């Protein structure tokens, strides 16, 4: 498997304010990120391939996971949004098998320590106070490099395991034909 040029990191930015979306997009692009912006948590979930199941089983809405061919390396979301908040979005992502390893960053205009702690406890990597600055965005690369390194390690491990399986359990269809 040849290592080609490293793909750009893809960041999904979620904010209901148009001005803030413009700002965060510009900030992220100056750091050479590929950026997608959406104006609500619901749209973010849709983009990520996670759709809220309307059927409430035992009172809890189940999020069914559609095959996701969208590759997002980091999600940065505003906390205060109408409808689903950034915190709710964070929780949904961390509950999802396919998305839980994507680093999530929360932004908020309000400096509320309990809010910050709650988000970090729920698994947010960072909490940025708005307005977000270049210095904040510069903190993102390490998280992304870490995720990418882990992904590559997992992939290497999975490839090794596949190779091992091939050795011990040769092609099953061949066996079927022979019987």
């Amino acid at each position: 498997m040849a290592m080609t040029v490293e793909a750009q990191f893809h960041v999904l930015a979620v904010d209901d304010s148009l001005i803030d979306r413009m700002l965060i997009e510009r900030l992220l692009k100056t750091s050479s990120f590929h950026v997608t912006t959406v104006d609500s948590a619901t749209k973010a979930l849709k983009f990520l391939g996670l759709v809220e199941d309307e059927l409430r089983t035992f009172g809890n809405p189940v999020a069914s996971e559609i095959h996701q061919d969208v590759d997002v390396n980091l999600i940065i979301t505003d906390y205060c949004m109408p409808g689903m908040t950034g915190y709710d979005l964070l929780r949904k992502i961390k509950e999802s098998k396919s998305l839980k390893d994507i680093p999530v960053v929360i932004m908020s205009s309000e400096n509320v320590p309990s809010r910050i702690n709650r988000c970090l406890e729920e698994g947010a990597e960072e909490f940025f106070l708005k307005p977000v600055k270049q210095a904040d965005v510069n903190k993102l690369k390490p998280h992304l490099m870490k995720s990418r390194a882990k992904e590559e390690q997992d992939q290497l491990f999975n490839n090794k395991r596949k190779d091992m399986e091939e050795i011990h359990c040769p092609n099953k269809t061949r066996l079927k034909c022979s019987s």
Partner: protein
Amino acid sequence: MDGIVQLQRQLVDYTASLFHEGFLDDQFNQLQQLQDESNPDFVVEVVTLFFEDAERLLNELTKALGQPSIDFKRLDTHVHQLKGSSSSIGAQRVQGVCISFRNSCEEQNVEGCLKNLQQVKHEYSLVKSKLETLFRMEQQILAAGGSVSSVTTEVHHVCQRYTRSLGPYSLQNANLPNKLLRFSSTSTGHASALRTHLVGMVNFFQISKMSPGQHSKVVTLSKQILMHSNCMS
């Protein structure tokens, strides 16, 4: 060529004065830093969005306060939005009034809200005209064949000077008041220069990001320093 240089000089001074008087804070400087050849109109675009957003919100606020029974929650939502967008472009004074406005909403104080609405409309119209003047001056320079990026760089240095005066202290740091005191006591030069610089620093540095405790500390301290420097002068 001389004409362009003079225009550029005027623009630097004008922008610096807006920082100094607290109309704009460091966030505006951040916006200018994000503008480059590939995004030459970024600042104008964002600020124009702010104007549209603010005007819409001010209309909503006026309507909401004109209702026979006032929905304070709705009012607060609009003020919160205005606070957010003004903070995002660095319109510090507008942001400051929004903070008081939110307090009035929380207290369900109608009188207070009406007063705050008047104040925010006033501050908004001031910063709007200042920014429009600033953009006009930029256009003049560009029309004369000059560059604005050198102006932006110089403005950035002005901001850096303010930032350096306060050192590595962020506004979240409770030592800020002490730092200000230390600065004033070691500072040489005329008392009025100190006064101006101090007021400039305090205004420039996004006061609205401080906690109420810190804010009152800094205000008290600034008053003490100013009184002290008054005695000295």
